[in-house]
């Protein structure tokens, strides 16, 4: 039986949420969450290290559990839901993509910085050959004007992506900016358009709705906001809001609320909220996974983590450059005044 869905939600807590818990997912947690999401009729569940396949590293954080084992665990308990994986060329390789496909991943989301789509064709082609559904995932979309975004999205479409996502990795977009970009993509592309938000400015829901109004049909959410920074559009809330709008997500609202409360909430040491640091991520336009790294660096060098994040924003640091955090923290510690203004 196929479910008719107006909006297709991908649940990212088991990938994006990996950042929020320092990549410490256990097989038990992933199994329990994936099983409950499947029972709630969530169509796609993303599972991987926060920085995608192959992300387990000194640079981003070492995974407690091998991500392939987590993917296998999720696949094993999903009757209908498809497991998606994220891959950032330059971090992960086709080898990991093949491995993920061989153990049952059905969707490949190939992520590049918004100006660098041309590192993705090899990986998109391979995903297609492996029979996977493909997504071109343009990260840090807020850093470029709409015209550039359209140009890069068209490349993703040309490489064979079934869907192209506007990814607000920093949670920096305002709703009118999202609307303008999705409208432009809607006109320029034939493929599906998606939106992935972060709630650092408390705008993930507003931005997701702006995206939907402008023609996006694929939206990412994280249950209980279990994602990097202040988390993503909160999935169970999105399901409720879509219902109020008369749009079908196909997801069971009660089951979604229950799993959020009883299965996902206990995974978080503290509930996700917009702390001063996550607020600064959105305000300064910095990659959301920098949150915990900058807090650690601030402690180590005895500086204000907000200063580190603001400085990283000024230097136009992009996703994946976690090594810049220590570097900038050390510089602020050495010379606090020159960096400040």
């Amino acid at each position: 039986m196929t479910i008719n869905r107006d909006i297709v939600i991908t649940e990212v807590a088991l990938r994006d949420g990996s950042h929020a818990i320092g990549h410490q997912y256990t097989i038990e947690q992933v199994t329990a969450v994936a099983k409950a999401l499947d029972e709630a009729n969530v169509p796609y569940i993303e599972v991987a290290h926060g920085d995608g396949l192959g992300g387990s590293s000194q640079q981003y954080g070492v995974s407690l559990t091998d991500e392939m084992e987590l993917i296998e665990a999720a696949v094993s308990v999903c009757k209908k839901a498809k497991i998606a994986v994220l891959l950032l060329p330059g971090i992960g390789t086709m080898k990991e993509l093949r491995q993920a496909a061989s153990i049952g991943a059905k969707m490949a989301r190939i992520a590049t910085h918004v100006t660098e789509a041309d590192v993705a064709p090899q990986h998109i082609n391979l995903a297609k050959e492996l029979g996977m559904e493909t997504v071109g995932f343009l990260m840090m979309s807020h850093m470029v004007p709409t015209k550039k975004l359209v140009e890069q999205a068209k490349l993703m479409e040309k490489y064979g992506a079934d869907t192209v996502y506007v990814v607000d990795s920093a949670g920096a977009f305002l709703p009118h900016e999202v609307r303008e970009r999705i409208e432009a993509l809607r006109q320029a592309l034939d493929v599906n358009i998606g939106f992935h938000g972060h709630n650092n400015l408390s705008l993930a829901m507003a931005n997701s709705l702006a995206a939907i109004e402008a023609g996006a049909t694929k939206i990412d959410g994280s249950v209980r906001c279990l994602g990097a920074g202040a988390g993503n559009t909160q999935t169970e809330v999105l399901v409720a809001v879509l219902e109020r709008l008369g749009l079908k997500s196909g997801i069971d609202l009660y089951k979604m609320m229950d799993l959020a409360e009883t299965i996902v909430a206990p995974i978080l040491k503290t509930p996700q909220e917009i702390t001063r640091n996550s607020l600064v991520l959105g305000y300064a336009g910095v990659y959301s996974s920098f949150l915990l790294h900058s807090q650690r660096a601030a402690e180590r060098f005895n500086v204000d983590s907000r200063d580190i994040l603001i400085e990283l924003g000024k230097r136009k640091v992009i996703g994946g450059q976690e090594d810049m955090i220590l570097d900038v923290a050390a510089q602020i510690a050495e010379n606090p005044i020159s960096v400040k203004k």
Partner: protein
Amino acid sequence: MPKVKVAIIGSGNIGTDLMMKLARSDVLELTAMIGIDPESDGLQRAKEQGYEVIDTGIKGFLAKPDLADIVFDATSAKAHIRHARLLKEAGKKVLDLTPAAVGPFVIPPVNLGENLDAPNINLITCGGQATIPMVHAVNRVSPVNYAEIVATISSKSAGPGTRANIDEFTQTTSRGIEEIGGAKKGKAIIILNPAEPPILMRDTVYAVVEDGTMDEEKITKSIEEMAKSVQSYVPGYRLRTQPIFEGNRVTVFLEVEGAGDYLPKYSGNLDIMTAAAVKVAEELARNQLIVHQ
């Protein structure tokens, strides 16, 4: 002094930068630049400089094999697989600047003298040339169980070859970290940053040493000495800060400013690759000239 004749296949960023460096060599004489696009900037410049220009690719060179004894390949990993075979049949010595990894690896300050007899020598990647010396510098003091490198280069300095080869970059660099750097396990990450003005090439090396072997003083000294060795042929190579020691892990922050030969100074990644290639070729040429005398 007699010189050894060399040619370059590939008229992109790396090939063109290499062309400019070879013009300064005492022992190498660039004779020909080989490409497939007569309109490319590299072939245009080669023509202006008076080098023989071949725009029909490797076939054109194989028709005139006496042009060079040593051939630099600056195309792409995929193309190199085919070139390697054809050049071997033609009896040419090949220095491979793609991450194809057909031949043995050479990182000048670590193993310059080794593998000179091999018909095909591979220079790993720009990230490998910048970071493997540091892995080796740590490993010669304390055994490295795991080394990871992150190379961040400006988008502008990453041409289509680099972009099409991004998996080969990480895989070949990882292998080089193990085989030449000496780490038991290696991992490489590459990031392309589009910021304007373009950023200098930056590299971060994380090395995790065996329990109980960390010697901060000796490692710091070894790293500083290694930086000097690399600086002898890449003047813009430098340590950004003192190494950071945390438990069994040492982190080294590097920056590579280019010589500004073809692309501007931000492209340290081109520089370190082409400078290493010239260094190896000059070593080969000197040996060859001695043998001939």
